[in-house]
């Protein structure tokens, strides 16, 4: 098209308007705009007519109404008398929770498998390969069903349990953990932790600057770790040990219906959460493993050889030369896997884990406010993904190779 533009610049006799790329471009775009506006107009008028016929008042009035349904997991106070808005908020927090925990485990498993995939040991290498090829070729929903309906149904019933170190107890009611009880003064431990993290960050920055200026190294990692760990521990003892653990109470005697774990004692992780997290983490880990493998393989062998030639040993070579360069390749696809995991957590609705989609679905069924609810879903997931991609762009710019 630009060929024609040059023509018209040189020759005074302009080509016919029909063949002018600019005119054509404007025409095509006008057609598109008209088509989109017409489509939008038709959709809006139809929707308004349909909603009127079905007697659904569109708008956000329903958000304040009483929900009237309970949930088996909420991070904030929630009861059947709470509002629909509150119910959606609980769902949103549950989505964030399962996504966060899932991302953590997926990253750990994914890195282990990815490195195992590069192992010289044939058995380990093949095991990792089989894991990746098996897990990523089976639909996630099937894996969620497998964990929820097949695995978690074959563990002990409510009246029995499996215990590990007498601290973690598993039965069909979920995983029971000791629950930390925050006494008075425990908030200071939290503040100390924050201060520790800030101090560690500052120390690391100062150490890097000093090393760049003078060449003298400083053990900033150990210092930081010490600050982050020791400050809260010291505060904990200074404040007179305000945090205690409440162990779950397993009743083994008495009438059969009373046997099992006492309600509301200790921390209960519901089985839906366990199944969903396991499936999400294991499924996403298979993709992360491939990303990690590709990232490490992308660092050319010459880099390792050059580092060895400079006298670096294996440890510093990995830490200072290979990993920083591999991370540049790993992080962008890794973030999109994190995003996929978050979006995939919406499959929770299939096993009734109360996430945003699941809670929203219940609200939708009760109120019929389909457009509003689906709008909320899309806005929430869209903003999550836009925030992530904004972060990605920032990171990419920071990490991009600076060339000539």
């Amino acid at each position, binding site marked *: *098209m*630009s*060929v024609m533009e040059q023509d018209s610049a040189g020759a005074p006799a302009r080509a016919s308007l029909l063949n002018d790329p600019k005119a054509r*471009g404007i025409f*095509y*775009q006008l057609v*598109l*705009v008209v088509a*989109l506006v017409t489509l939008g107009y*038709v*959709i809006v008028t*139809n*929707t308004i*007519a*349909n*909603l009127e*016929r079905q007697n659904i008042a569109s708008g956000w009035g329903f958000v304040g109404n009483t929900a009237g349904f309970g949930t088996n997991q909420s991070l904030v106070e929630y009861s059947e008398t709470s509002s629909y808005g509150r119910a959606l908020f609980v769902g949103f927090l549950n989505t964030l929770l399962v996504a966060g925990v899932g991302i953590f485990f997926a990253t750990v498993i994914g890195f282990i498998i990815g490195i195992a995939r590069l*192992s*010289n*040991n*044939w*058995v*380990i290498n093949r*095991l990792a390969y089989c894991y990746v*090829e*098996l897990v*990523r*070729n*089976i*639909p*996630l*929903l*099937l894996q969620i*069903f*497998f964990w929820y*309906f*097949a695995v978690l*149904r074959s563990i002990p019933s409510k009246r029995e349990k499996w215990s590990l170190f007498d601290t973690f107890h598993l039965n069909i009611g979920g995983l029971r953990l000791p629950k930390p009880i925050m006494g008075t003064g425990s908030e200071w431990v939290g503040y100390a932790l924050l201060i520790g993290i800030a101090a560690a960050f500052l120390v690391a920055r100062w150490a890097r600057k000093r090393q760049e200026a003078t060449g003298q190294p400083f053990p900033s990692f150990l210092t930081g770790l010490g600050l982050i760990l020791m400050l809260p521990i010291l505060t904990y003892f200074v404040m007179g040990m305000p945090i205690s653990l409440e162990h779950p109470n397993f009743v083994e005697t008495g009438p059969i219906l009373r046997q099992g774990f006492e309600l509301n004692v200790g921390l209960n992780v519901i089985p839906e959460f366990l199944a969903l997290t396991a499936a999400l983490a294991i499924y996403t880990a298979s993709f992360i493993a491939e990303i990690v493998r590709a990232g490490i393989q992308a660092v050319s062998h010459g880099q390792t050889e050059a580092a060895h030639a400079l006298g670096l040993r294996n440890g510093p070579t990995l830490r200072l030369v290979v990993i920083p360069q591999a991370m540049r390749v790993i992080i962008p696809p890794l973030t999109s896997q994190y995003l996929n995991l978050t*979006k*995939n957590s*919406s*499959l929770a*609705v*299939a096993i009734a884990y109360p996430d945003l*989609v699941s809670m929203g*679905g219940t609200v*939708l069924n009760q109120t019929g406010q*389909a*457009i509003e609810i*689906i709008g909320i*879903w*899309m806005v929430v*997931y*869209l903003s*999550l*993904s*836009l925030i992530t991609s904004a972060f990605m762009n920032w990171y990419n710019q920071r990490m991009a190779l600076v060339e000539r």
Partner: protein
Amino acid sequence: MANTDLFHIRTEEAPRLPAPISTTGVIGWMRQNLFSSIGNTVLTVIGILIAYSLIAPLIQFAFIDAVWTGENREACLPQEGGHSGACWAYVEAYFPQFIYGRYPTEEVWRVNVVYFLFAALLIPLAIPNAPFKKINAILFLVVFPIVAYYLLTGLVFGDVVILPIVETAVWGGLLVTLVIAVTGIVASLPLGIALALGRRSKMPIIKLVSIIFIEFWRGVPLITVLFMSSVVLPLFLPDGVTFDKLLRVLIGVTLFSAAYMAEVVRGGLQAIPKGQYEGAMALGLRFWPMMYLIILPQALKLVIPGIVNTFIGLFKDTTLVLIVGMFDLLGQIQSSFTDPTWSTPSTGHTGYLFAAVVFWTFCFGMSRYSIFMENKLHTGHKR
């Protein structure tokens, strides 16, 4: 003293000794790859233990303890003291449902014809050396969908019933899975290419619309798209116009995967050097001939792995339709668990194992095929 004893000159080559037995053959390979150091040996042992602890119970369940024939649940109930193995008799009894859903038994031949045509057209298309590629592609992409549509839904002229109508509500099992996956794949590729070209267009409005479209669909989970197509889409239509549920889901799935496809194709377009565009324009090609003859063949070739990955993702994602109340293969299996005739402790495990094997076979096959094609088409750029 004889000087000759002090030195010795070898006049013929020494006999070649075989390499030490510890470095050749199976033993050498094992020494090198499995037991080269203490740490490596420990890893090997742990690896073998893990593999054994996973594979042995699976073989025990799927083959040794399995029940192969039976009329009802009695056959599959665990024997006294024994473990309950896979209940393949249940899969056998339900097999027609898993493949055809509740498609009327006397009309099942139509589905079989579609399956047969699909395979008969796809296999020669997939073999690089098979002849008549062009005719084959036209048959597969244009004729087959029309034929399949009328075969599956039915054909009626006024009062003359040639093929009785079969409502999509009774479709199910592998049929629904394949219909959604194949339609989604075939429809999303051209749409994705158009969107990718739009995103790289110099016309600002077309570019903006493409970007918004792509980022919107990529940003939301498929499940909300499916809810939207099954709950909200009917609201968009004028009164009296109703869409088939399967068609609504198909629209949602196609738009969703088109956005992913667009990003994959865009990656390929970006990798084409500017000289190719300039060369095409210097030859006097207009936009579409340039794209069709020069740019897209190269760009698509580069992104074959990405396209196939999108296909695999789409194929796996078809399972999500069970959440909006349709019965794909997984949905059909899941709903068969409620049947008391076959309710045994191992029915669920068997059903999931069957579903996993079917899905895995399709997905793994596709990924292997993509690797094969990638190597086949890797001309020029490889060093």
